[in-house]
């Protein structure tokens, strides 16, 4: 043999290390908790070593659902609902598209999609400022009541 090309390495799929099953069992347990008590939970996929085959098994078993979403903050976060409603796959990337952390969320909605409460307060201020720019003459602040 001379040179690296002479080394006969080939990729063989040997079925993973079995940890995907453990993750699937935890998802089952969390999903039952969501159904019975409405309790939401999250599983950190870096918590157990997974081989590529384990990822494949996880992805195939969970499948694809109806929702895809992307959050742009501190690099992208990509989310998809799996084919099991209530089970979401959430992957945080940095701005170089490298994976920072990966979670399975068992929830009505992944937390990062929800509007942070304090942001809404800031948002109302921002909207009022923009409305004032659009029409400095109109009365501001006390928004009209919707209970007429």
């Amino acid at each position, binding site marked *: 043999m001379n040179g690296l090309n002479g080394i006969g390495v080939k990729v063989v799929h040997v079925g993973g290390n079995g*940890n995907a099953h453990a993750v699937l069992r935890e998802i089952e347990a969390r999903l039952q908790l969501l159904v019975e008590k409405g309790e939401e939970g999250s599983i950190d996929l870096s918590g157990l*070593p997974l081989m590529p085959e384990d990822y494949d098994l996880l992805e195939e078993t969970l499948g694809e659902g109806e929702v895809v979403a992307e959050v742009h903050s501190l690099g992208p976060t990509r989310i998809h609902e799996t084919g099991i409603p209530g089970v979401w796959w959430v992957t*945080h990337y*940095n*701005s*170089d598209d490298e994976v920072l952390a990966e979670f399975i969320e068992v929830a009505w909605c992944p937390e*990062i999609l929800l509007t942070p409460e304090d942001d809404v307060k800031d948002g109302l201020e921002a909207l009022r400022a923009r409305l004032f720019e659009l029409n400095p003459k109109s009365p501001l602040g006390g928004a009209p009541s919707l209970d007429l």
Partner: protein
Amino acid sequence: MRDETLLDTLKRRGISRRGFLKFCATTASMLALPPAMAAEVAAALGKVRRPAVIWLSFQECTGCTESLTRAHSPSIESLIFDAISLDYHHTLQAASGHAAEEAREHSMKQDWGNYLLLVDGSIPLKDDGVYSTIAGISNLQMLKDAAAGAAAIVSVGTCAAYGGLPHANPNPTGAVSVSEIIKDKPIINVPGCPPIPAVLTGVLAHYLTFGAIPDLDDLGRPKAFFGESIHDRCYRRPFYDQGKFAKTFDDEGARNGWCLFELGCKGPTTHNACATTKWNGGTSWPVQSGHGCLGCSEPDFWDGGSFYKALSTPISPVTGAAAAAVAIGAAAGVAIGLANRQTKAAAKAAHQKATIADLEK
């Protein structure tokens, strides 16, 4: 700026609350905390002040700094660095020589008793430390001066932690670790040649979050990252349990990704986070690339004999309570919660509503 909280710092950089949540979720993952802790991490990080940090580099190859600063570009890790006030770093700062040393002394005075001191490189003691000096000051003297005003010290890399390569036989400069010189301050060892960037940032994140140093093992390493062996967390571990070993680097077993134990892998005696954190942004790590672990985060790893000779002692197949929990957990469906790297965190993993207070010391 010195008094602002971490959340303020991030906001000033245009990081939104969702970004902060992401930062905290990633930090919780890095610290091996259960994901439900992210909200608590966020609450804690939102309130803390930026700690001042002084970084000294002694007898070293700059590999540690290279590893850390080239980790991820504008990422969570760089944010952790932004979250601290890095007042002095030999290699990274623009100033040099006497001007630099004046800056260091100024910073030390300003935060005397409160700053975090980071050190990479070993300290040569032979011939009055003449083998490594900065602006005419020996490493030994500078370390003693800086340590006196530090709240805690982080020894970054195997050289600072255990002497490392300079300390290897026959140790011509009389190199020693930080902990052989400083006895009156808490010292956190983050060994590795180089150390895993995420581990250092994890330690900083822990310090930021809890305002205290993390739980350490007998060798002064944070248990969160060094609590289990490479072997315990290795994705090839199941092949070890099945008795499937590569015998040479190009046989059938090597191609099938079997265990590298018989090719000299030091995974069973090495404690580090490579198997879970990986390298180069999670791309790969030595064992995944087909080479056994060298044991670079252990004391005297250069003097431990051939990297290619199998460990002679039979290793107990599962070490410690956490690994036992993996076996039970895998059957019971709570694997990740219990296999959690940090013992205290693991105990809390099942409780979604655990708070920071549960984990603080």
